[in-house]
């Protein structure tokens, strides 16, 4: 009797879901790695080129958009680099949030049978997006070199915008997956919203065509700051000013904390909701 006085599981010790979830996630590190590995391995398993598609896909989009728009928009510097850096940041966000939603749906079958930390599906989705992001930096470098654009020292700063973007994406992903367990239509609605959101963010058009009086409105868009951070280091080649960095940091951390708390406060219901 004396040996087992401390329970392995005690339902009374999980009073602050947001904090205990973080601890549990740490214990399930190996599962996290396995889920990311599975998603990367299986995504292109049946295709001949396999993982190369992660790099070819944004490259193709960039080529088409460059051909269509390069005469329309007179971007300073290399338009292909401008557009590809925007696409990479945007794809990370769009794919990461969608994968977080579908990951939770996939996990729902498991969650009814065994315990796993619920956030693991969202976190692994962002993990997968991060690996894909690293892979797609390869074509970005190729485009920089082939268009004879400068390779800036500020590239070493790139991990910072990527981490900020990952935080923001996870936050939104957690909020969306919580909502989609209550309303299955959320996922469909979100696709429309994403399209609108993309056109409201300077991805394919240069920031300079935004009318002076509208630029303040654009600054309300968190993705405006995220994409900007990303581009500063690869395209403009300068470090962000504090006035540019702080909004990005605020949105990223704020959204992550909000999403985490919202998701974990509802996660006890998932097992019988979906």
């Amino acid at each position, binding site marked *: 009797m004396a040996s*087992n006085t*401390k*329970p*392995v599981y*005690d*339902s009374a010790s999980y009073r602050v879901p947001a904090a205990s979830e973080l601890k549990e996630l740490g214990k399930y590190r190996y599962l996290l790695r*396995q889920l990311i590995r*599975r998603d990367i391995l299986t995504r292109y398993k*049946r295709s001949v080129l396999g993982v190369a598609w992660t790099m070819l896909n944004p490259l193709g989009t960039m080529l088409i958009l460059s051909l269509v728009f390069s005469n329309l928009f007179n971007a300073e510097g290399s338009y292909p680099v401008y557009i590809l850096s925007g696409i990479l940041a945007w794809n990370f966000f769009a794919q990461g949030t969608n994968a977080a939603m579908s990951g939770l749906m996939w996990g729902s079958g498991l969650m009814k*049978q065994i315990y796993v930390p619920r956030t693991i599906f969202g976190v692994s989705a962002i993990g997968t997006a991060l690996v894909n992001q690293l892979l797609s930096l390869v074509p970005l470098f190729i485009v920089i070199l082939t268009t004879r654009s400068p390779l800036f020292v500020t590239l070493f700063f790139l991990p910072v915008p990527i981490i900020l973007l990952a935080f923001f994406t996870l936050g939104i992903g957690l909020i969306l997956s919580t909502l989609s367990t209550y309303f299955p239509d959320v996922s469909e609605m979100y696709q429309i919203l994403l399209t609108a959101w993309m056109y409201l963010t300077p991805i394919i058009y240069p920031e300079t065509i935004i009318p002076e009086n509208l630029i303040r409105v654009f600054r309300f868009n968190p993705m405006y700051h995220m994409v900007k951070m990303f581009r500063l280091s690869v395209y403009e080649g300068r470090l962000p000013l504090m006035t540019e960095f702080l909004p990005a940091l605020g949105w990223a951390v704020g959204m992550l904390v909000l999403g985490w708390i919202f998701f974990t406060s509802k996660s006890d219901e998932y097992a019988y909701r979906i």
Partner: protein
Amino acid sequence: MLTEFKLKPDSENEQFGSMQPMIILDNVAVKYRVPTERIGTFKEFAIRTLQRRVSYKSFWALNDVNLEIQKGEVFGLVGNNGAGKSTMLKVISRVLRPTKGRVRAFGKIAPLLELGAGFHPELTGRENIYLNGSLLGYSKEEMDRVFDEIVDFSELGTFIEAPIRSYSSGMHARLGFSVATAHLPEILILDEILSVGDEAFQHKCNDRMKRFRENGATIIMVSHGLSMVEEMCSRVAWLDHGVIQKIGDPLEVISAYRGAN
């Protein structure tokens, strides 16, 4: 603490010498809250919330359950559909959190997954063993240790390097069972899934269960096969409408349950 246990005489456990609780449920209740009508869209929900027309029906799937399961017991749950058996297993295995009361488990819980859950068809048997093991909460080192035994037990041979979409359903089932029972569990939870594979494999499964029992594993099972429960369990509880009606000797409890139906 000790006196508390002595207050609950339990003849079934004397054979295990000192009593060592593995699972304790204190006044556990689980409430399900479901909307009376299905509200599928945001629009509907928003409109109805404004009109205050969202009505919920709540019912208690478990109601004020007190239970102690000792180390080494094979504990069976019987009852009609909707009596709360699965809810009880879920609350013990941490899938559901109790609405009220407290659940404590003093050992690692290994639930048997439904067949094929957590497998990915495009990954090989080998890759799926590690994926499935990690879902059950094991580390890479722990899986390395039992890997050969899993391959051996599941009788998959060279198929282990093939994607499991090429497996027959029997191979699927054998692999799932082998992974789930590769480690000696402290607490094993079985929900109606002991009919895996052909007769020969069934035999192997039963042997493995026996070995677990001999090694002091605690087993909690739910089954509609009353004769199996009677045969395997050392103690049985009959649940009805989320309340324990009778608990104790398998023969007595099962005949009482039969009498009530």
